[in-house]
């Protein structure tokens, strides 16, 4: 592992150059008349068909960090790390009916962000602001984590220092600045082709080299037996955590602003529904990727510099010829750029629509809005790079953990709100506050245990909250975010009952029932929303 592997690095850089060219070229691809509208820049003109949507949402959900961290977790803990598979099985049927309602109402009313929806549905600028801030805070560390993915690959190739990461992100920042959502959609094609190629080759070649799947699982079992922690199966006390983490993560996934951005860019309800049945193909791939962790155990791979996240790149380097390892590394590297681009666009939209226009400059013109959104996306990315360079990467991993738990707290307003506005706007704020406090407290109370069961760190050590802390006589653990969501819901319901009994005004619903089932062909469904749109532009686009 001394020095730089030149073949790997050359292949990696070659792909990066191709992708950069694509990113800049994207501005001209499926071009609309005017990229200076926020809708054009931020939602790709809302006209992505089944395949582009599939690549876009896939690139959004299955990130570089997933490809690096999930097998690393399986490598270290075994079965518990496999939760990513049930999580991505549960998510699609769970949101199959929900997300198309959001698509419809957004296209009728011209919502670009989840906070736009909450603002109008519950007539509550306060709750909308909370949703926007939650979204931005939860997304930032997620972007930073993508850099951790690139860093792991670079480290394995022997490239150290911060400069390469800064360069990679600078390129990303510049082309999303000029091409908006088109850039990640186009690059996602390249990324997924490389990812699938790598996975198929890895799943065939590596177990064969190692002597078959039973050898792979056998070696893993032996390792966990020796270590006395982790295992091929879950311990009895970890089963509730496994199920609640899968369910909680699934519920959280489509509350993240970047997944909503990806979904809203789809052409129609049918496009989205078809995607819900096609996206699980990624989950199959994810299952195999997770098992790379066991393959690394069987191959006796050791992480570079003790950094667990390098386990998969190190395995590839050990098992593949350099040129192919370079391709695999490029897949991970590009895999980091796609979600990072979408996430920064989503965070920028939230800032522009729900903070800048709402509180700072109410009379902003569409051109001003688009300018601010572009600038905000740059600021978000610079922030992410700064976070990685100046703060311990571990810190962003912790923040991401918190991010998942806090984004769940927007479920009552964004998710349940799509079906009913029975929950009172005041109760939503109260529930959010209670859920937030619970999430932070429970996560704070979770210690990180070393392999021998001693406490390595006292706080923010994971997401498995021991029910024993609540005075229950059990060692069963549960996902902290899930517990917080329950508290949130209970408070929201109780306060709603109280406020309704006191006849407190619950505002005016800015949406109609029929909005939620509107189809693309309906006259009420628009490509570009008022007030971002001029009537003439809309007519021209409809042709």
């Amino acid at each position, binding site marked *: 592992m001394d020095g730089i592997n030149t073949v790997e690095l050359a292949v990696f850089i070659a792909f990066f150059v191709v992708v950069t060219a694509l990113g800049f070229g994207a501005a001209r691809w499926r071009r609309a008349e005017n990229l200076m509208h926020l809708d054009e820049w931020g939602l790709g003109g809302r006209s992505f068909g089944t395949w582009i949507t599939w690549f876009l949402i896939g690139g959004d959900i299955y990130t570089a960090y997933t490809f690096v961290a999930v097998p690393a977790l399986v490598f270290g803990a075994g*079965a518990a790390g*496999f939760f990513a*598979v*049930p999580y991505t*099985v*549960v998510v*699609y*049927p*769970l949101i*199959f*009916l929900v997300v*198309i*309602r959001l698509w419809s109402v957004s296209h*009728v*009313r*011209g919502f670009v962000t989840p906070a736009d929806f909450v*603002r*109008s549905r519950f007539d509550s600028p306060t709750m909308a602001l909370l949703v926007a801030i939650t979204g931005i805070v939860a997304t930032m560390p997620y972007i930073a984590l993508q850099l951790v993915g690139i860093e792991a690959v670079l480290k394995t190739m022997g490239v150290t220092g911060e400069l390469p990461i800064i360069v990679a992100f600078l390129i990303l920042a510049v082309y999303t600045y000029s091409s908006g959502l088109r850039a990640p959609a186009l690059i996602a094609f390249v990324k997924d082709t490389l990812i699938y190629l790598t996975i198929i080759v890895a799943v065939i070649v590596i177990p064969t080299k190692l002597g*078959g*799947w*039973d050898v*792979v*699982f056998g070696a893993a079992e032996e390792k966990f037996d020796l270590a006395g922690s982790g295992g*091929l*199966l*879950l311990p009895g006390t970890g*089963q*509730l955590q*496994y199920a609640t983490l*899968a*369910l909680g993560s699934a519920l959280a996934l489509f509350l993240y602003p970047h997944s909503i951005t990806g979904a809203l860019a789809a052409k129609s309800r*049918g496009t989205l*529904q*078809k995607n*819900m*049945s*096609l996206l*699980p*193909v990624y*989950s*199959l791939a994810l*299952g195999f990727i997770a*098992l790379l962790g066991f393959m690394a155990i069987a191959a006796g791979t050791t992480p570079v510099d003790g950094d667990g996240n390098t386990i998969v790149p190190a395995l590839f380097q050990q098992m593949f010829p350099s040129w192919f390892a370079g391709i695999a590394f490029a897949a991970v590297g590009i895999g980091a750029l796609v979600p990072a681009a979408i996430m920064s666009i989503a965070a920028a939209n939230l800032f522009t629509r729900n903070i800048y226009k709402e509180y700072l400059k109410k009379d902003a013109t569409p051109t001003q809005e688009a300018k601010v959104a572009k600038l905000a996306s740059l600021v978000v990315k610079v922030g992410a790079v700064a976070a990685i360079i100046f703060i311990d990467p571990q810190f962003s991993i912790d923040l991401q953990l918190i991010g998942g738990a806090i984004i769940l707290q927007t479920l009552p307003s964004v998710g349940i709100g799509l079906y009913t506005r029975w929950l009172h706007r005041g109760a939503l704020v109260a529930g959010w506050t209670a859920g937030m406090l619970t999430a932070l407290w429970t996560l704070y109370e979770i210690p990180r245990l070393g392999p021998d069961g001693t406490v390595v760190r006292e706080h923010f050590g994971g997401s498995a909250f021991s029910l024993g802390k609540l005075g229950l006589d059990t060692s069963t653990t549960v996902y902290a975010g899930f517990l917080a969501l329950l508290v949130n819901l209970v408070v929201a319901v109780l306060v709603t009952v109280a406020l309704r009994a006191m006849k407190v005004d619950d505002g*005016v*619903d*800015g*949406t*109609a*029932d*029929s*909005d939620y*089932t*509107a*189809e693309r062909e*309906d*006259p*009420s469904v628009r490509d570009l*929303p*008022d*007030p971002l749109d001029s009537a003439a532009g809309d007519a021209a686009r409809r042709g």
Partner: protein
Amino acid sequence: MDEQPPAASRRAADVAPRRSDKNPWNWLLLLPIVLPLLVPLYNRRDPELFGWPFFYWAQLAFVVVGVLTTTLVHRAHQRRKQG
């Protein structure tokens, strides 16, 4: 759009036909949601398949269940839309 008066909602209601996204086929979606959450059901080693413990191949099989059910429900929605 933000300060939309109630009158505007009524106007939108006029142009968008009232529909329902309720469909008996939707119940099928419960299967891939509930199955992966019943951990004790699959947290076991046997039967193995190609050297894979049940825990691992069962969960990949759930992916297939998810694909099949969502495809069926999507088809049902489309039939209703056309019919």
